[in-house]
């Protein structure tokens, strides 16, 4: 009788131990699967997005954008220390190659279907609807909501030597301050002008001429241009320009926004399907 009770207790004890062991193994396994599912895939997607964004900045020779919020003044300032060069090398060839490489080669190695949809090098500040577009002989910034822009300043480093002449638009004090400065090939300041300009009117350009014949020279226009209000267009004729220290100050709007590429990164496979724009920076 006593032996039977003891054996029963022992059996229950051992079965309980086996149950605990099974539970521990199950929990360990599910925890590991959860870590894989919640950490690995988003990190991978974020890293691919980062790689594409960085490569586009390298293609354009642009420094990563910086931002600064001033809550007391209620402003957001976006800065680009380096904004590539004008004229630009023919980018379409390299962007096609890059998109093809991502789709065919990188996808294969990563065992995912990765592609770039509508791959362009345009950079957009969401929320503020400002887009920087890089053309062959001009760089254009479209401010679709120009009322949000408070001021803009840009410095243009040129390969011109001696300035011959310059012009600046007539000021219109009720609008945004546009500041343009130009440096010659030795880094000396040859032109600096700040004007308040209406975004809705066709204003004359800030123009700098390096020779009496008219060439080489550069123009910076702000206002109604290319069929759109709030357009800043930098054009060069016979000069090489490196736009630097671009600072755009906006009236702060609530919420988080992104500086992003106008390109959709599509990733599918491994039971996921994502289409995201490539974010360069959150502001």
């Amino acid at each position, binding site marked *: 009788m006593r*032996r039977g009770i*003891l054996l029963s207790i*022992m059996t229950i*004890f*051992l079965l309980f*131990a086996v149950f*605990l*062991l099974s539970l*521990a193994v199950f*929990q*360990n396994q599910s*925890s*590991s699967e959860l*870590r*894989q599912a919640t*950490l*690995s895939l988003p*990190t*991978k997607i974020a*890293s691919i997005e*980062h*790689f*594409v964004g*960085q*490569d*586009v900045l*390298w*293609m354009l020779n642009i420094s990563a954008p910086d931002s600064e919020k001033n809550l007391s003044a209620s402003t957001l300032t976006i800065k680009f220390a380096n904004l590539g060069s004008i004229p630009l*090398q023919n980018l379409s060839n*390299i962007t096609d*190659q*890059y998109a093809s*490489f*991502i789709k065919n*080669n*990188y996808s294969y*190695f*990563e065992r995912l279907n990765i592609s770039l949809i509508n791959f362009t090098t345009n950079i957009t500040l969401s929320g503020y609807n400002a887009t920087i577009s890089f053309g062959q002989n001009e760089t254009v910034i479209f401010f679709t909501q120009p009322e949000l822009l408070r001021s803009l300043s840009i410095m243009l480093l040129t390969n011109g030597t001696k300035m011959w002449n310059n012009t600046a638009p007539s000021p219109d004090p009720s609008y945004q301050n546009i500041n343009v400065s130009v440096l010659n090939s030795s880094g000396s300041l040859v032109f600096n002008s700040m004007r308040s300009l209406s975004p809705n009117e066709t204003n004359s350009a800030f123009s700098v001429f390096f020779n009496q014949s008219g060439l080489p020279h550069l123009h910076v226009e702000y206002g109604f241009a290319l069929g759109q209000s709030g357009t800043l267009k930098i054009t060069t004729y016979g000069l090489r320009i490196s736009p630097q220290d671009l600072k755009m100050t906006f009236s702060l709007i609530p919420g988080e926004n992104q500086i992003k590429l106008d390109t959709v990164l599509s990733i599918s496979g491994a039971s996921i399907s994502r289409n995201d724009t490539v974010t360069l920076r959150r502001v």
Partner: protein
Amino acid sequence: MKKGFIFTIDILLSLLVALGFFSGIIIFMSEPSTPQFSTTDLHQNTLSALISLEANDTLRDAFSQNLTPRIMEFLNNATASNLCFNLTFLNDTFKIEQNHVKANCSRQNQIAIARRPLYAGERIRMVTLEAWYK
């Protein structure tokens, strides 16, 4: 030999085995559920190291300049001491252009690999970083 003596030893031994088994399970359960050397963590570390190597345009410029000292300084001193790394630069036809292995590291079987496409020198290339625990 009394009848009761055998039963007592028998039960005593069973009890000891059961207690040992039970203690073992309790110890097993009290340990962290994730292994110390997780493959997920290894992959995360590999990715982080690859992204860190972009600082000062190191990855891009390594194709046009000799940046071996800077890369080795990073691999040897800026990465976790229990991790080994093997950084490989591949050209546009996937042939190895450069290879950098962290000092005092020999290849292990379990590795994590992070790859990135790379625009450098007006060509599309690839960089791979392999990592494993020492």
